[in-house]
């Protein structure tokens, strides 16, 4: 122990760092992510029964899922789901809602402007920047390529 050089110590330390439990994480992400999508499908099918068209159903489903995600984050349940499901809880649209509510709630004491409202977008902001930005580029490229024909 005492006469280890740097490299030896690094190797020793690497061995001691617990390996993430890959298989368990993947299984839980699969189950939680799949289950949230099934929940979304149940909502979709119910909305179709109300006679909404495809487009409205998709929009209404995301509104409902965002509501559920925000609410479950508020009462502290979504963070528990996230701890188990990892990416399975983060990637569905409910996780997007979670990424908005979580930091906003956390920084409430910094006020309603710089605390709540600004922190809402600490993760959602980058998501919107890249998403909206790239969609405009897609539209422009589509215009160029279809006009070029």
């Amino acid at each position, binding site marked *: 122990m005492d006469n280890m050089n740097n490299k030896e110590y690094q190797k020793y330390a690497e061995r001691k760092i617990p390996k993430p439990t890959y298989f368990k994480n993947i299984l839980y992400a699969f189950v939680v992510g799949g289950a949230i999508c099934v929940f979304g*499908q149940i909502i979709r099918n119910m909305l179709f029964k109300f006679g909404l068209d495809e487009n409205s159903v998709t929009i209404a489903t995301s509104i409902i*899922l965002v509501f559920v995600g925000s609410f479950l984050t508020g009462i502290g349940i979504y963070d528990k789901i996230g701890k188990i499901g990892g990416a399975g809880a983060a990637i569905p649209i409910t996780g997007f809602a979670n990424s908005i509510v979580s930091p906003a709630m956390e920084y409430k004491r910094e006020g309603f402007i710089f605390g709540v409202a600004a922190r809402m977008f600490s993760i959602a902001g980058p998501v919107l920047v890249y998403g909206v930005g790239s969609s405009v580029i897609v539209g422009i490229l589509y215009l160029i390529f279809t006009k070029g024909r």
Partner: protein
Amino acid sequence: MEYLKVFIVGGLICVIGQILLDTTKLTPAHILVIFLTSGVVLGAVGLYKPLIEFAEAGAIVPISGFGYALSKGAIDGVKAKGIIGAFVGGLEATAGGIAAAILFGYIAAIVFDPKTKS
């Protein structure tokens, strides 16, 4: 059978994210941006639509489905309004979800307090 397809496709999309989380130094925020942008690109080249036709919510509910809606909106916008549509279409198609996220997110953050970490 329908729900099985939803479960498997939705689950697999999340598994890709989990593998990225565990094997790289990417944070969940990176994963969200990567998946959303992938949805935009895959939607633009026409690869994401078949997945939605096959698995419906399994492909719509993950954030990549949000990206698909953005790029589909932009392309439909261009078809209807030309260059203006490229700027308007993406947000128009996703406005419902974004507005809901802003309103419900704000209300939830105001009404509830963070739970003490145990």
